[in-house]
């Protein structure tokens, strides 16, 4: 933008109005002319922009902080609902969550209670698939039997590996009712590797990863069964975390 254009555009006084504002305008104009080539002027302008932006962004962040937290909790609840039937619990799974320390770090466990008794737990498991990590959530009853498995996040090939999603196929359903005892631990493989579980035709790596992650989830339950079960109500949460 050339200088003349700027002047004309910004500081043009309406024609034929010799009012008091004109003098003021002239002074501003003179001031502007004096400083607008100075680096400090540009620093001020850009700094001003940044400040205003920062203020707006900060206020937006504040304003949306709570609603976003609520949404995320809703998300979690809805995915938990996929692996623990509503009939099994009367508590707020998210509210009662506790963490269990494992050799691999801490894992958040969401317990389901009905009338004070633990009926099931759910937690996330993951394994690396074809396109990256596959994050699933599994629900397990106190006997170590799977109530359900649901894939939460993955980057598998569309149309091929993504058939592990429940909305794209029944493959994931085959885990329900399985435990480390049935099939035997050695059978926790896809059929192609000589195990029990079906693979998806055309894709082996993805199902292999999911089977592995579910199995590791069950092993986690087996290893920490006592810790998980000896918590009759949500009050233990405080002790453990």
């Amino acid at each position: 933008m050339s200088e003349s254009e700027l002047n004309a555009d910004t500081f043009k006084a309406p024609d034929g109005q010799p009012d008091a504002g004109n003098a003021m305008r002239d002074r501003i104009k003179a001031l502007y002319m004096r400083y607008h080539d100075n680096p400090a002027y540009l620093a001020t302008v850009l700094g001003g922009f940044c400040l205003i932006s920062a203020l707006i962004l900060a206020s937006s962040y504040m304003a949306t902080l709570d609603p976003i937290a609520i949404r995320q909790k809703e998300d979690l609840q809805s995915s938990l609902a996929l692996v623990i039937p509503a009939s099994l619990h009367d508590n707020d799974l998210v509210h009662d969550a506790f963490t269990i320390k494992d050799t691999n770090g801490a894992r958040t466990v969401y317990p389901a209670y009905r009338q004070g008794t633990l009926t099931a737990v759910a937690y996330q498991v993951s394994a690396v698939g074809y396109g990256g990590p596959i994050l699933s959530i599994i629900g397990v009853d106190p006997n170590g039997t799977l109530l359900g498995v649901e894939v939460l996040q993955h980057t598998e090939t569309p149309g091929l590996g993504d058939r592990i999603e429940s909305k794209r196929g029944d493959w994931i359903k085959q885990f329900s009712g399985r435990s480390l005892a049935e099939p035997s631990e050695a059978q926790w493989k896809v059929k192609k590797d000589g195990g029990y579980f079906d693979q998806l035709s055309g894709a082996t790596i993805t199902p292999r990863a999911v089977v592995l992650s579910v199995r590791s989830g069950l092993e986690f339950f087996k290893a920490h069964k006592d810790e998980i079960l000896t918590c009759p109500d949500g009050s233990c949460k405080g002790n453990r975390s």
Partner: protein
Amino acid sequence: MSDVNITAGPFSHSGASVSRTMGLVMVALLPSTLFGFVQFGWPSIYLFLVTVAAAILAEALCLKLAGKPVKLHLLDGSGILTGWLLAMTLPPWAPWWIGAVGSLIAIMLAKQAFGGLGQNVFNPAMVARTVLLISFPIQMTQFLGPQPIYSGAAPDFIRGLAITFGGHPEIDAITSASLLGTIKTELGRGEVLQQILAQSFDLKNMVIGFAPGSMGETSAILALIGGLFLLATRIITWHIPVAMIGAMSALSGLAHFLDPAHFASPLVHLVSGTFAFAVFFIATDYVTAPGSPLGKIIFGAGVGTLTFIIRTWAAYPEGVAFAILLMNATVPLIDTYIKPRIYGRTRKGDPINLKETSKGEAR
């Protein structure tokens, strides 16, 4: 003699022509092709015909759209050859539409969209094969063991039709993995290579071609015969094949020497998959290979190296197609920097030093 349209010389010609070149390549392909037909029976013949016919139709359509002389270019044989090469790389009992879609991709997307004959950057058959593999992984990895056309188990004329055109379900029942696929799976299970090979590798069968695989790629020896024919007729030069085989042998040999339990020997690599076929028929494709002899050597070595890397560490058991496409992309770069030395100049392009040549005279 025509005064109006003067042309500069020379007025003698060797008689070489594009159609002759393409024709000789087809002749070289014949042994592999016929062996494939015998090996995999009627379905493979149908798939071959569909693929080639689709290639011709696609070529004709594109030429017409582009306003080029259709007949002249159809007769140059390049379209047919592309379809033929593509068919050679398909699983022999794949449904007809795999061949048809593949030909459309090869001709329209990979060849004509770039400007037609001689203009494409990537080898059309390999583009089609890769697109098909990524798009239809199930159909593209259903190989089957040899079902020689004369044997009792082979489908007859009518059942062949059903397999190729009817989406016959029987194929699922008889598929078996290719050698490379088996190695990849078994290694993934933690098996040791020697055991895997003891069960599923028979060198003689692999060389002759009695193995599961694509229609025209199973027989290493027939590919070699075709390749030697091409070398003898000077259609191709030795640079790319030698460099490709050399790089593959050197790398796999080294790896095998260091850890024979996990890296297959050069012999396995050379006779399995599409390697032998690609060495002579795909990597040597004029249009998508560098122009200078040294460039060709670099290109061939690159394809060999990448193939070894992909076969060994990547997700796919066979990597020739990817390797060739990747190296195709480097061809303009190779051609920019690797040129033959000009007479009277150094490789850099400066006139050669007078004093050095005078020294030669002192002998």
